[in-house]
């Protein structure tokens, strides 16, 4: 179909930009400068509160918004999950919290430094940046990266700044290819010419890092895993059907979700998901559509209420006349999780979805997208998806 060419890039330079984003503080836009200033000020306010308490003999503490299912509200009219107003106190003089309290401040200090120097840092980098022996002991400030990552998420919600505003990014995960050109940190990347590997979606997909150019695709097809994505890319599905092909390696990262969100909001592209027929596939769709519990505070800029679920549907076993080989029996955990998902408020009054989950439970088995290979290697790209697209039969 459309084969518009944009600037040519040497393959060697393609991967570099994604890794070192925001390399040029000199070109920092005015809005970015303001944003950094705001983040710095919030960190200072946080520390000021602690210092004041300490100096007046009151208990130093930090209010951290709670990131749990209990504090997640389902905004039905907007179709997204939002964080409630619940907070937890993090106290210094509490044996279970003292260490986290210290770590929160340590990362606060680290982020202020990053902002001051105009650099960004990976989650792993943040872990190493904050890591040292506590004075006079053999205790490390962080035991592992998980501990550090959780503190950063806490810090995001505490001072109400996003991860990128903290100058922190995650390991990139997820791939993109299709009829679109992306300008990533000033480098133009033609996603039509990405070979077999595709364009790695960066962790930060904010407009100051990523801009879109010549978005020619009609829609986005998001698949669950890299293996499926490879099939579609090899068959050049995106060329034939004029779309953008993305994958999120399982549960998509914030970067992938932000990319999808922007393509949907800024260019009106429908997001169509091809995921496994199992509770985990269902939940990936739910996160893309409504947002997740732990990142409910970011739903506004990540959730895509218009996203569609194409399949695999529980009825496909019969409709496509699949063999028994595709059946994977549901185990107890799958069943529990499916029932749990069915009870989430954002699924509870969605009749088609209730029917879908019940259908899967009734089947007693789950199916993976790869299972379609039992029909034919390219069954999924040549028959299954085209048929579904033509039928426009999806769950919303």
């Amino acid at each position, binding site marked *: 179909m459309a084969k518009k060419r944009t600037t040519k890039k040497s393959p060697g330079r393609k991967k570099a930009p994604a890794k070192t984003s925001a390399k040029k503080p000199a070109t920092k836009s005015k809005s970015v400068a303001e944003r950094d200033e705001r983040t710095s000020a919030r960190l200072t306010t946080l520390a000021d509160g602690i210092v004041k308490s*300490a100096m007046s003999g009151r208990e130093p503490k930090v209010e951290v918004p709670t990131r749990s299912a209990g504090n997640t509200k389902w905004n039905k009219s907007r179709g997204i999950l939002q964080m409630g107003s619940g907070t937890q106190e993090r106290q210094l*003089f509490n044996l279970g919290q003292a260490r986290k309290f210290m770590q929160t401040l340590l990362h606060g200090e680290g982020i*202020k430094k990053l902002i001051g120097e105009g650099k960004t840092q990976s989650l792993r980098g943040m872990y190493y940046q904050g890591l040292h022996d506590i004075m006079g002991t053999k205790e490390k400030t962080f035991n592992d990266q998980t501990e550090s990552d959780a503190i950063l998420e806490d810090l995001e919600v505490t001072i109400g700044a996003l991860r990128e505003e903290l100058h922190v990014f995650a390991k990139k995960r997820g791939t993109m290819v299709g009829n679109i050109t992306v300008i990533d940190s000033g480098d133009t990347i033609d996603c039509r010419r990405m070979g077999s590997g595709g364009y790695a979606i960066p962790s930060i997909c904010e407009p100051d890092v990523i801009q879109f150019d010549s978005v020619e695709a009609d829609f986005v097809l998001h698949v669950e895993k890299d293996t499926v994505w490879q099939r579609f890319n090899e068959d050049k599905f995106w060329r034939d059907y004029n779309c953008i092909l993305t994958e999120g390696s399982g549960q998509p990262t914030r970067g992938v979700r932000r990319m999808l969100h922007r393509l949907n909001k800024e260019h009106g592209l429908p997001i169509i998901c091809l995921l496994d027929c199992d509770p985990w596939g269902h939940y990936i769709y739910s996160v893309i559509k409504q947002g997740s519990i732990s990142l409910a505070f970011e739903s506004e800029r990540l959730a895509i209420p218009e996203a569609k679920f194409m399949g695999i549907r529980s009825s496909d076993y019969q409709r496509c006349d699949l063999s028994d080989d595709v059946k994977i029996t549901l185990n107890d955990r799958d069943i529990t999780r499916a029932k749990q998902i069915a009870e989430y408020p954002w699924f509870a009054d969605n009749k088609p979805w209730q029917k879908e989950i019940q259908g899967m439970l009734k089947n007693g088995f789950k199916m993976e997208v790869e299972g379609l290979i039992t029909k034919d290697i390219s069954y999924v790209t040549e028959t299954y998806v085209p048929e579904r697209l033509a039928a426009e039969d999806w769950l919303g």
Partner: protein
Amino acid sequence: MAKKSSSKARATAETMAAKQRDISVSEFFAKNRHLLGFDNPRKALLTTIKEAVDNALDACEEAGILPDIEVKIEEITPPPSPQKAGRYRVTVTDNGPGIVRRQVENIFGKLLYGSKFHRLKMSRGQQGIGISAAGMYGLMTTGKPMVIHTRPKKNKPAHHIELAMDTTKNVPEVTIDVETDDFPQTSSGTGTRVSLVLEARYARGKTSVEAYLEQTAIANPHTQITFIPPDKADEDPELEGEPTDEDTEPEQAESGDIVRTEEHADRIVYPRTIGELPPETEEIKPHPYGVELGNFLRMLKATDEKQLGGFFKREFCRVTPAVVSDITKAASSKGKSFTGQSWIKNIDHAAAEKIYAALQDAKLRSPPTDCLAPIGVRQMLAGMLKGVQAEFYTASTRSPAVYRGNPFQIEAAVAYGGDLPGDQQARIIRFANRVPLLYQQSACCAFKSVVETGWKNYGLSQPRGGAPVGPLVVMIHMASVWVPFTSESKEAIADYDEIRKEMTLALKECGRKLGAYIRRRQRMKREGERRDVFERYIGEIAKSCTALTGVDTAELYDNLMKQAKRRTEIADAKLDEEGKFIKDDDGRLAKDDDVIIVRDGQIANPKDEPKAETEAKPAKRSTPASGKKTAKKKVVKKVKKKRSPAKAGLFEG
């Protein structure tokens, strides 16, 4: 028995009769010495000393003399190899009332002769076997007679008697009988010294002479014991030079000093820590519930009384005339009716059995309990303090109870912490009428009660079906007019439900106090650890805050540290303003009269001496009423003593 019409009859009634004759008790013993605790050379030494010391203590107490006892072991022939027996001379000297000349042979030379068997009275010895059995053992193994010095009258020469024994006839033979001046000047002026040579083995350990004396000292804090072991006896101790005046008697010190066992170059001294004798005990008549039918019949036959009423009144306790009329009515039948006036000679076997049954069914009051003299809480604590180096001591005395018609009383004490080994099972020391029981621990009711008690509730670990593990010494004492031993060698208390229940209750009382103490310790430790945690992080936090706000690091640090200290103040309880160690007041626990806490070699919660009260009514020392009174007195004094009143409130909440 005789075989019927058999040509090869092995024996006839006549030939058998020719062989049948009396068995002398002494002869029986000679063959069955293990029954009395002379199974092996090592145990023989212990049993010999035990019998001699028990007798000495009983005699001193009956005569109202504070006992001063010296035990000396001399090695005559060393054991040829460590496993074999050597020859030892054992000499036990007391300051008791002495023995009148004519009784010496009977007491020391005759088995089953004594004052203690026929009466129901709390005393160490019971059967009258002990010391004479030791003498017989010595005679059998070495051929040496027992040497006795005794001075029953002050300022008169002592008797020197040497005794051998005819084991076939159970008759003592006096070989030497002279008067002598060679007798140490004891504190009382009178006294007895017994000296035996026997085949034995001297060793240290859990069942050694030393352990026995140490435990005796714990249960008898009114006694001073000097022990001269064989490896030290050669150093020619100047016994006569021993200062024994009453003035230097170590009273339980009020200042918090602890009187401990003293190890000298040539002797070990277990000093007296309580300057008063245990109260004298009353002898009681048997309670009907404790008398078996055969015994009852024998008593009926032997009594001097002519009528039933008189018989019951004279021979039993708690059988009132009203009870007598009830019993006789119950035992009466159509043909025969009995009353209190019935003549005893007219009562045949069947009638006696009926009366006995009625007696067992009758509702009788429990036997009197003034016949018991418990060691007492204060005395047990003093004893434990002397013999066990721990940091926490508590003791408890139960009210008297009854098993099979015999009154008894259980006491328990525990010592915890300090230098005691923390990774071993608790050491359990058992006493019956103040006598340590060293052997057959697992067969003993006291051990079973320790196992039965749930020590986990009190913060100790306890393997299933075992004694608790931890730095713990458990002491259990049973006082009774008749302690039910499992065997003649008096090594383990029989397992009666009533006894076990009382023991468990006493242990629980101690356990609760111990648990409170352990939890307190743990809390203080936790607070200390908490502060450590805070202190560790405060430095980091101050640094980060400086980077974020520009605040002065040192100032913030100081402020946070101040707060950390305030919030973990409890950990500071033992530090005063200069950071020096002072006594933690240990909260309410320290105010309890039955608790002693030792810190830095001092009693952290010294008690007032309730002297006046104790002397007036020694037997009621440990009743709850008087306990409370002293506790109140304590509180008043404590408040005055307190250095910083602000800290006093810390533990109340």
